[in-house]
């Protein structure tokens, strides 16, 4: 697609849907928090202060403090890097591996297709969060393993998507035309199929990010992966939940809302991208 039309479509998508523009701004903000978080925050996220335990939100501590007197705002912002990082690595891993597997299966067909398809089917035969729990429990309780588990359960989405997209396009007339023009399988794939499936894959990635964030946070919420006192949204909500019956709402609401914002942002971006690429598939 020409750059000019891309710009026009982008402007159209933003104009049609101000939410997408909002999501784009939010995205920039989240990335800034992830990159610069530790240098921006007013307090050391790990420093406890026995004199300032369980303080409600105030000017000094806009998000209040937790049971150890740590500043919730600082912890919430600093956690962005870990939460987004886990999701980005997991999604990148499953995108690369899954797309490669799916594309190979879709283009070559035959026994390769069957074996790869069977692997995806087996992963999908589990409730995915449960499988992720099992993988982290088996591999060991660490951040890396959360990333791996999240990547594994996302594999089939990219794999099947890529397989279907390749399959549809393999028999399209312009692929046949490329073969008539002397393109072998590799160059058909690289020059004619991949550029055409990248835009829909981008949509998939964006929608998947939100889900990966939820997944990683869910795992740490039940005590897997990230360990205290490391600031991470899931575990912070879990810690804060202990004080729900004594009314210290700020301990779980702020990290929870951070999670919601991040997921919301990626979901909206995904929808916006989809509108941009194919207005007809708008849902």
């Amino acid at each position: 697609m020409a750059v000019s039309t891309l710009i026009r479509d982008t402007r159209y998508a933003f104009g049609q849907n101000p939410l997408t523009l909002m999501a784009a701004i939010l995205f920039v903000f989240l990335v800034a928090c992830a990159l610069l978080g530790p240098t921006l925050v007013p307090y050391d996220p790990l420093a406890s202060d026995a004199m300032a335990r369980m303080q409600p939100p105030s000017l000094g501590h806009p998000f209040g403090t937790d049971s150890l007197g740590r500043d919730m705002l600082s912890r919430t912002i600093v956690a962005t890097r870990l939460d987004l990082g886990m999701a980005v690595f997991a999604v990148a891993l499953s995108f690369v591996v899954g797309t490669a597997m799916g594309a190979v299966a879709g283009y070559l067909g035959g026994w390769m297709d069957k074996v790869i398809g069977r692997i995806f089917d087996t992963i999908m035969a589990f409730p995915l969060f449960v499988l992720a729990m099992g993988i982290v429990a088996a591999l060991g309780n660490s951040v890396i393993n959360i990333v791996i588990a999240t990547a594994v359960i996302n594999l089939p989405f990219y794999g099947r998507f890529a397989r279907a997209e390749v399959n549809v396009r393999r028999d399209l007339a312009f692929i046949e035309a490329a073969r008539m023009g002397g393109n072998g399988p590799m160059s058909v794939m690289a020059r004619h199929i991949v550029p055409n499936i990248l835009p829909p894959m981008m949509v998939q990635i964006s929608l998947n990010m939100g889900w990966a964030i939820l997944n990683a946070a869910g795992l740490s919420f039940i005590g897997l992966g990230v360990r205290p006192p490391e600031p991470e949204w899931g575990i912070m909500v879990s810690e804060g939940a202990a004080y729900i019956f004594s009314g210290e709402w700020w301990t779980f609401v702020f990290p929870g809302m951070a999670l919601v914002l991040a997921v919301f942002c990626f979901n909206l971006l995904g929808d916006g991208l989809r509108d941009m690429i194919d207005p007809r598939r708008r849902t």
Partner: protein
Amino acid sequence: MSDAPLLSALGLTKFFKVGGREGGLLHAVDHVDLSIGRGESIGLVGESGCGKSTLARVLAHLTPPSAGQLRFEGVDIGQIPERRFASRPERARIQMVFQDPTESLNPHLTVEGAILDPIRRLLPGMSAANAAARVDEVLDLVGLPLAFKPRYPHQLSGGQRARVGIARAIAVEPALLILDEPTSALDVSVQAVILKLLADLRTRLGMSYLFVSHDLNVVRLLCQRVVVMYLGKVIESGPVERIFAHPRHPYTRALLAAVPDPARRDTRPPRLAGSPSSPVNPDPRVCRFYGRCPIGTERCAEDMPNLRPIGAEHLVACHYAEQQKGLAA
């Protein structure tokens, strides 16, 4: 060499496996003999599902035949695997123009990119400057202004896309151009322009055409010889004037009688009832047209008629071809 046909197919067959475990074979193309002379233009007609598109794809070496021989310029190319065929000189000699000009252009390639791609791959000896000049030359041949080079397919009209599809195919100077319903997606006025362009290109470049179409009138205008297919078999072939004036196979007659014609107003030519029988595992003894054929005798159910000569260059696969003169139309 000069007398030998450009392309000849002998017993060319393409079967597809269908229906999972029970394992039926769909006889898409069933022992077809066909030859295309140098500079000749042949029309391939038949209803949808008769195997004409599959035959075109086999001849274009887009899909390998299940059996049979396919000779092109004296070389048996039927059994060459695609990976190797892509780098053989014959690849450039056989080119194809596809049905839907929109679907047959890569949306991410400009007009120039689309035409340059086959030139670079199939004419590797050509310098970059010559390749660029070649693009200009074919754009001129198909009547597209050079200003269109940086445009993308979605910025072109249907007729312009059709021209790009043709330019891409003729850029590597093929000897045989296979055209798969090249104008069926176009409006009448655009179709007329493209048909005239195709006729003009053939006289100027001396290519052979295999013109696949469901529109008999288009074939009449553009082709010298016509081949009629029914359920994977060639059932009649011969010079265009002769077939149109004296069709001998009952199917060809019905086909011609079904072409809309204002002159036939208020008449009622005999129509074909029903639809074709299944192409999956057909009985090798029964004529494929049996059951739908107005003649259909016991003999047709026991002895499949072979293609046989009935006049100069006129072949028919019907036991009763000689008795067909007096009937209808």
